[in-house]
């Protein structure tokens, strides 16, 4: 198969990651066959293997479905610990993982809490509690 016959990816992984640092959009993909919404780059649906995912901008608000407070961070987050690592279920479907530097204690966050994506000019998908999130990070 020549490269021009391969399914096109709407964006590169690098473009997705850079968009997180610049305040969005939160890029995602939707499977027209099964309806899966994913925040992970790929060429085929991870659930039904359909080839031909379509670009889908993810909502920037949702609720925490699981989280941990990390006191021993990875090397890119050395000066940020402690912080929360979160799995967020986005309004309208799809889940995305991210980090919350504003959470400094284990009881500083609860499952089910509403959060919003914020612009950080730092690596990764950064969230803040919806009540605390600055306007700069809000979706247009």
């Amino acid at each position, binding site marked *: 198969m020549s490269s021009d016959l391969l399914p096109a990816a709407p964006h590169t992984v690098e473009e997705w990651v850079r968009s997180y640092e610049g305040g969005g959009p939160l890029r995602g993909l939707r499977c027209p066959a099964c309806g899966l919404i994913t925040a992970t780059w790929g060429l085929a649906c991870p659930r039904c293997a359909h080839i031909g995912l379509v670009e889908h901008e993810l909502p920037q608000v949702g609720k925490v479905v699981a989280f941990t*407070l990390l006191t*021993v961070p*990875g090397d890119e987050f050395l000066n940020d610990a402690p*912080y929360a*690592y979160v*799995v967020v279920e986005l309004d309208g479907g799809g889940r995305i993982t991210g*980090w919350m530097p504003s959470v400094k204690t284990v009881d500083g966050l609860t499952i089910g809490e509403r959060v919003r994506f914020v612009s950080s000019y730092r690596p*990764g998908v950064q969230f803040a509690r919806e009540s605390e999130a600055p306007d700069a990070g809000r979706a247009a």
Partner: protein
Amino acid sequence: MRETWVVGAASNRFGKMKETGREAATRVSLAAIEASGLSPKDIGYTFVSNCFGIAEHQAHVGPLINGGLGIPEVPSCTIESACSSSSAALHEAFVQVAGGFVDAALVVGAEKLSHLDTLAATSYFATAADYAFETKNGATFPGLYATLASAYLAAHPTTPEMLGAIAVKNHANAARNPHAHFQKEISMATYLSSPIIASPLRLYDCCPFSDGAAAVVVAAKEFVKSPRSEPLVVRASARAGSITEMQDRPDLLGLPASQTAGAKAFRQAHMEPRDIDFAEVHDCFTIAEALALEDLGFFPRGQGARAAMDGLTTRDGKLPVNSSGGLKAKGHPVSATGVSQVVEVFEQFNGLAPGREVPRTQTALTHNVGATGGSCSVHIFSRR
């Protein structure tokens, strides 16, 4: 398919090695071959795992090991599947031997990371997650498993003492295992007073960074005329994969790859969970043992975490789990872990586990996970 046996096994002591991974791998390989009663010249293929060999500035270590064993002409292949690397290598060796391509194969895993500081070692481990979509979002390995623990605790009534009982049990077993990194028991009070690393996981919920090496020899029944030791008959060798990223998993209350690989293995072996006498499962964190027991069908959903506290998985329990001490206390030299689980089965079958014997040794299961479940291997063994 030919009946395939594990005929020899060896491990060094996990912890901090002075020698290189290459030296340790060669040493345990020769010990495993000697234990099998075969000679290096009988080996038809060598499968090597050395996931983080690059940390020692060494890739393509297979030919170096074979050269050190006096069999440089034997083909070798490096298998990488994160923490399940050497169980993946065992699967490939099984395929070669059972399929009749070679009569005997060597499987060896080795890892050395102790020359790195904790930050560097943590970062090496994190490369097995999705770098762009997990690590760049702040994930570490304890963090990823802690996130699973958070989901588990939200879904099932779970006390700190339940996870603590897993740590206490596995330390008690490791205290009786000369291969173990931590050969000391811990009390529940010690567990509960240990610091939080990634909530809700404490220091004593986490496996250590360990150096180590382990090897097994796999051979066709028809090739081994008179085995030196009681062989392990490979009843099943199954692998499975699943979505790596937690953001795309339908639920966080188990590892789909464990469920799939376990079901495949039980089908291959024509067995059910109740037929297994003891198990070595992937307990890189205490929550991982709980999930494994549920994913493999040994306990219902929500009951895996309390099994140790209820005495069901201690050496004298209904299903002894991690009699070696597990990754949690025996240690977790990433690429040696999968094979070292089989070393424990070999030692239990051959009466080579004094002080930590399990009461029934007709059948055993090993379960080895790659990273947070992107890969999984399950093997089932029995006596002849």
